[in-house]
């Protein structure tokens, strides 16, 4: 059975012109011990989808979903208290900005020990010993003396390690890492990613890593979900996605990596992510897509199974008939205009 099942998850924010959907019909499933990468530009709804899963959508947002199951629990049906005990213990999350994700008023040790005491019902001594163990596991030197350090006395990388220690303190079954390396130095990034991978392997937990760094995804994820404007555009095993992207957006994202253009001008995707207030009628990517046709502008494609993954496109790149169809669609448009 899948550890995590999300079906048709949407986040709605009321507005005068009808509800806005920063997350629109996201479906995911994750096996125990699997590593899933979610990539997309800023504002594509990656983080919000995960917060919705945790029941943390900020006011006045609302969550709607066909199904939201985690480890046998129906998250749509559980009470607030049950959800809280579940999210602290079995689902944990680490954040982008290590400097602000720890409470500046308390020592690092206090914050780890607090989590252990609440969720694992440990007494003070046990919790302290376990905290030292955890700090050791995440590679913090001299863990005993670090317990009494405040977050501002530690570097960003150290703080992120502490965050990871808190997150794994209760042996979660699912760890969500929301851009865990974005705010860190490149040299530290690799260390943190390795640490996450090691911990994931040791504990066999499921790991969702949210990032806009394709390199990070390539390095650690087994499967990748590409999000754009709140929708999943493509889902595929990592190697397949990088070797043969099926969605034009994925193709453009991969082309925009700096390392793919050494010695040339960097490639960009023209235009910007459509505003929440002005979503295109058809495919959300159509205003920026080089393959756009009248069909993509008018009709929004569904996410459909395609070559071992899924893709939301009228003309997936691996489709042998696509060029002919694109030409035909553009042609018919010209004829109707004439």
């Amino acid at each position: 059975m899948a550890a995590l099942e999300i079906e048709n998850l949407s986040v709605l924010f009321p507005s005068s012109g009808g509800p806005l959907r920063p997350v629109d019909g996201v479906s995911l499933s994750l096996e125990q011990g699997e590593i899933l990468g979610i990539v997309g530009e800023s504002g594509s709804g990656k983080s919000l989808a995960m917060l919705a899963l945790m029941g943390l959508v900020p006011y006045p947002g609302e969550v709607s979903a066909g199904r939201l199951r985690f480890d046998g629990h129906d998250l749509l049906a559980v009470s607030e208290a049950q959800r809280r005990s579940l999210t602290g213990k079995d689902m944990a999350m680490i954040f982008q900005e290590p400097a602000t994700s720890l409470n500046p008023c308390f020592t690092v040790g206090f914050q780890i020990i607090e989590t252990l005491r609440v969720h694992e019902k440990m007494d003070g001594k046990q919790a302290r010993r376990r905290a030292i163990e955890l700090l050791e596991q995440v590679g913090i030197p001299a863990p005993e003396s670090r317990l009494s350090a405040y977050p501002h006395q530690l570097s960003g990388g150290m703080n992120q390690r502490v965050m990871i220690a808190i997150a794994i303190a209760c042996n979660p079954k699912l760890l969500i890492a929301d851009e865990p390396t974005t705010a860190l130095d490149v040299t530290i990034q690799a260390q943190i990613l390795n640490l996450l991978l090691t911990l994931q392997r040791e504990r066999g937990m499921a790991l969702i890593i949210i990032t806009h760094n394709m390199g990070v995804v390539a390095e650690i994820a087994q499967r990748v979900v590409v999000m754009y404007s709140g929708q999943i555009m493509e889902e595929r095993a990592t190697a397949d996605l990088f070797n043969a992207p099926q969605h034009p957006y994925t193709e453009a994202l991969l082309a925009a990596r700096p390392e793919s253009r050494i010695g040339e001008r960097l490639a960009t995707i023209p235009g910007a992510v459509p505003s929440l207030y002005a979503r295109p009628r058809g495919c959300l990517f159509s205003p920026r897509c080089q393959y756009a046709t009248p069909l993509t502008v008018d009709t929004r494609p569904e996410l459909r199974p395609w070559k071992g993954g899924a893709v939301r496109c009228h003309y997936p790149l691996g489709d042998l008939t696509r060029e002919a169809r694109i030409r035909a669609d553009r042609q018919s448009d010209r004829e109707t205009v004439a």
Partner: protein
Amino acid sequence: MSAQTAEAPAIAAPSTALAGIPQHPAMEFYGDFVANPGAVIGVLVIFALLILAATADLIAPYSPVLTSDTGFLLPPFWQTGGSLAHPLGTDPIGRDLLSRLIYGTRLSLLIGAAVVTLSVLFGTTLGLIAGFFRGVVEISIMRLMDIILTLPSLLLAIVIVAILGPGVMNALLAVAIVQLPFYVRIVRAAVIAETAKDYVTAAKVSGAGSLRLMVKEVLPNCAAPLIVQASLGISTAILDAAALGFLGLGAQPPTPEWGTMLADAREFILRAWWVVTFPGVMILITVLAFNLFGDGLRDALDPKLKR
């Protein structure tokens, strides 16, 4: 904890290699505070006033309320007609001015502390609630505070005392209500700024409930502006209470309250300068001391003002 603080200087002192070890926050704060001479003077004066208030029964030469027929409106000792028996002279009905001033310290400090305690307590609670539960709750609390703010503070205090009746307790309550909006606003603003930070989300992810989030996670991070406002609020409270006393709405005679003393002596201002001057000077010194102290606290607690 005590073992660690004891051994920390032992490690840090001899070795220059460890000079980068950050100071304990309390030590850092102490250093920043002491570097500000005004703040130190303020603290010293406050200490002196506290000692004065605590030992009033011992050091005051006379009772503050008993009149004596040795002389009315006697001048201070350095003026002709004055004597060391009444170093600062006597008031129109023969009470010793020095004793009244000493006992007045007790009352003024008590008023300052009580008012600030009340308004911090209620202000923080309302501010936390407003900052946390946005929407209707926030709107109703903040608009109520806005209404209180639209009225001139002294006028509002007068209205409240007029409704409740004059007296020290009611004056205290009136001043506390007048000061409330400042604390509510400060706490709400701090709470809104803090709740946007990831550590609050992280705490929610770890399953913290609303009450725990409010009191344990966010409130300690709002403490700095609150402490500064509270220390400055003491001086405002003393001033407002004195003003109410002066208008006859605060402490009632014969209570030795500085504002009331000023009011009682108003008609003698031309004939006997000391009966108005000394209570006024006491108010000035106390308010100034608390202001200096508050400014010093702000400089030491606000990282943006650090040199």
